[in-house]
């Protein structure tokens, strides 16, 4: 049952990356692919119906970890205290930028919120990517399962640890590039005209960088966590993830080149799904790796809530998840088709 909840946690957080990822990517790109107010509003109309619901997957992920692995939630959130607070402020500013922008037609007002939205949308994927890098690299858990990390220390993965080191910065950059690629393909799918054309260019430029970075991070992970590939190879789920990842990359590139916008975006979704799925499978049963003494790592066995709590959660969680997926199916159906530049109100 612990492993079921590990799977649920991985699923919810992956949904968060795939869904909120496209609006973060759109936010990181919009200053470049949408140069005037009308085009900006075309971008915002494309993500407008979705972004708020997408962000709920993060809260849902927090809820799942709280319920199923409270020790992990407690240790990680307090151990990364200042970094988490930065992420929260970035999310607050980002939401406000999206909501407040439209209320005044003033040029400087809109430029200010566009800039805020861009900074927040760019910074957050880097921080989230670095966070995942930290979990893979390991954190200095003490005997009671607590730790505190400075923002940076020696910049190495073996000396004094910090949240940022060469490896976690690399994973942060990979996350940003993956999200920009993802967002570009979403915008290409959901817009027309200049924004679509520029988004396709952005995706084309991001694609080789993404592939190279992905290879670099994979190699670096084997250096930082020796035995990583063995762990991947020994798990069938990781194999499935790897196949999905490669297939997603291939499909997204080919569909982009042949103008099948939706297929290209779905390819990018498959890539993210495969990459995160394989990572989760390789980590299992570890949730948070302890740097140094491996016996202190949080695993599904020692970090899970009591079976009674896990069983209670399973009684309602599946129904809630089906409901949530239903809302998203409804949203995507209601807002199907492209946002045409000509349809954006003056």
């Amino acid at each position: 049952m612990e492993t079921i909840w590990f799977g649920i946690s991985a699923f919810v957080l992956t949904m968060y990356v795939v869904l909120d990822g496209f609006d973060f990517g759109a936010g990181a790109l919009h200053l470049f692919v949408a140069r005037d107010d009308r085009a900006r509003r075309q971008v915002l109309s494309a993500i407008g119906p979705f972004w708020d619901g997408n962000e709920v997957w993060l809260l849902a992920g927090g809820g799942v970890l709280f319920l199923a692995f409270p020790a992990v939630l407690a240790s990680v959130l307090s151990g990364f205290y200042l970094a988490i607070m930065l992420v929260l402020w970035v999310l607050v500013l980002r939401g406000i930028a999206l909501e407040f922008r439209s209320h005044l037609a003033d040029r400087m007002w809109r430029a200010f919120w566009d800039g805020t939205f861009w900074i927040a949308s760019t910074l957050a994927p880097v921080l989230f990517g670095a966070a995942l890098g930290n979990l893979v690299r390991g954190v200095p858990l003490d005997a009671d399962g607590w730790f505190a990390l400075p923002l940076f220390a020696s910049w190495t993965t073996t000396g004094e640890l910090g949240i940022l080191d060469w490896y976690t910065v690399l994973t942060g950059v990979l996350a940003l590039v993956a999200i920009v690629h993802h967002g570009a393909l979403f915008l290409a799918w959901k817009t027309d005209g200049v924004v679509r054309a520029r988004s396709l260019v952005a995706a084309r430029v991001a694609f080789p960088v993404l592939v190279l970075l992905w290879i670099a991070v994979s190699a670096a992970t084997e250096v930082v966590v020796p035995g990583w590939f063995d762990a991947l190879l020994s798990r069938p789920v990781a194999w499935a993830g790897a196949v999905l990842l490669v297939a997603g990359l291939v499909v997204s590139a080919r569909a982009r080149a042949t103008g099948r916008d939706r297929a290209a975006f779905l390819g990018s979704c498959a890539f993210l799904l495969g990459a995160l799925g394989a990572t989760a499978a390789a980590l299992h049963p570890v949730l948070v790796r302890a740097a140094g003494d491996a016996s202190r790592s949080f695993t599904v066995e020692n970090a899970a809530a009591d079976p009674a709590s896990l069983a209670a959660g399973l009684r309602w969680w599946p129904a809630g998840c089906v409901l949530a997926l239903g809302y998203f199916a409804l949203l995507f159906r209601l807002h199907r088709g492209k946002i045409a530049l000509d349809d954006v109100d003056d």
Partner: protein
Amino acid sequence: MDDPLFWHRLQFGFTATFHYIFPQLTMGLALLVVVMKLAALRGGGAAWDDAARFWTRILGLGFALGVVTGIPMEFQFGTNWAAFSRTTGGVIGQTLAMEGLFAFFLESTLLGLLLFGERRLGPRRHFVVACGLLLGSWLSAYFIVTTNAFMQHPVGHALAADGSYQVGDLAAFLLNPWALVQVLHNQCGAVVSGAFCVASVGAFWTLRGEHADVARVSLRTGVIAGLVASMLVAFPTGHWQGRMVAAHQPVALAAMEGRFESGPRAPLAVIGQPDVANRTLDNPVRLPALLSWIAYGDFSADVAGLDAFAEDVWPTNVELLYYAFHVMVGLGTLFIALMGLATLQLLRRRLATTRPLLWVLALAFPFPFIANTAGWMTAEFGRQPWLVYGLLRTADGASPTVHAGATVFTTLGFAGLYFVLGVLFLALVGREVALGPHGHAAHSAPDASAHAEDA
């Protein structure tokens, strides 16, 4: 400055208080918008539709602020109260996860449709969307209040071998009697906040002689809903809440009332200043035997004073608890009087011409927010020194590895950020009020409704 516990409490208290300004507004407005749309559907006239549209715009702004200030709350359990989260996550993680799954997804799906989908959906389906949003936002309140109720009066849990609390009986935890009473009391309080805002803007427009039709229906909705909700806050829900405190937190009741000595025929202290050092209530005005009746339904019942309890289970700030409670009750009583008077004038068809009363109504809107805040301060200070009543002390719940300096820094950061958000919110709402129900602001950006018609 170097006590991390103080800063954790200050930070959580501040961010929660600021956050809750917005949900109480939107939960109240959601109900009133449903009422207005219902009146419009039943042929009440265009003014009801215009009023519903205007208040939906304010609802949208409030929702935006509620969402962004709510995100930190969910994570502050882990960042600031890690030991508490680890000890009780198996239990309260249930309701926090339910809130995301059952309430937030529903709200986030429907809000866009409510704000931008009226033309496309048509009046009936748009009304259903408004009802759905009302359901989502009130469900969210239920899950959060149930989480809080576990901290106030833990039930349905079991102690695991590792010292953590786990679900013993999920139904008992979800149907905690404290939660059921508190959620009713709380929702009535939220409707008071929403109603006072609606009445205030209606009064403001009436005083200025603007937007006569929408002003009239806003005033009418706000005043009647304000009276009904103010009365329900006090009786029966406030009364039930008092009984609940008397039954499960008698030491908190004693502190709320500044009652230092036990005894029968306990009086109710209307006014007075608690002097904890000398264990007296200075300059009191008391109503004899009323507290005994409120607490136990019997004028001669024995009501324990603080002297009946060891000092290490007294609420840690008796004075603040006392004043918070009295501010809440005092304001609540004034609300009933004000809205009662306004309803009387409304029934005599003289409200629109009673300018002094309109002035009071126009300026009264901040006070329900103060009363709701004071009410939550009563609940939370009354819970001290416990984080989970009788099970886990607040001092044992904070994050062990977070330094006070980090918490001071982030508290200042939140203060600055939230100050800016508050100013922007007031400016944008003020602008909507100044523009009036017909002055459409530029709401084009997230409007995806237009394109779906073509698709």
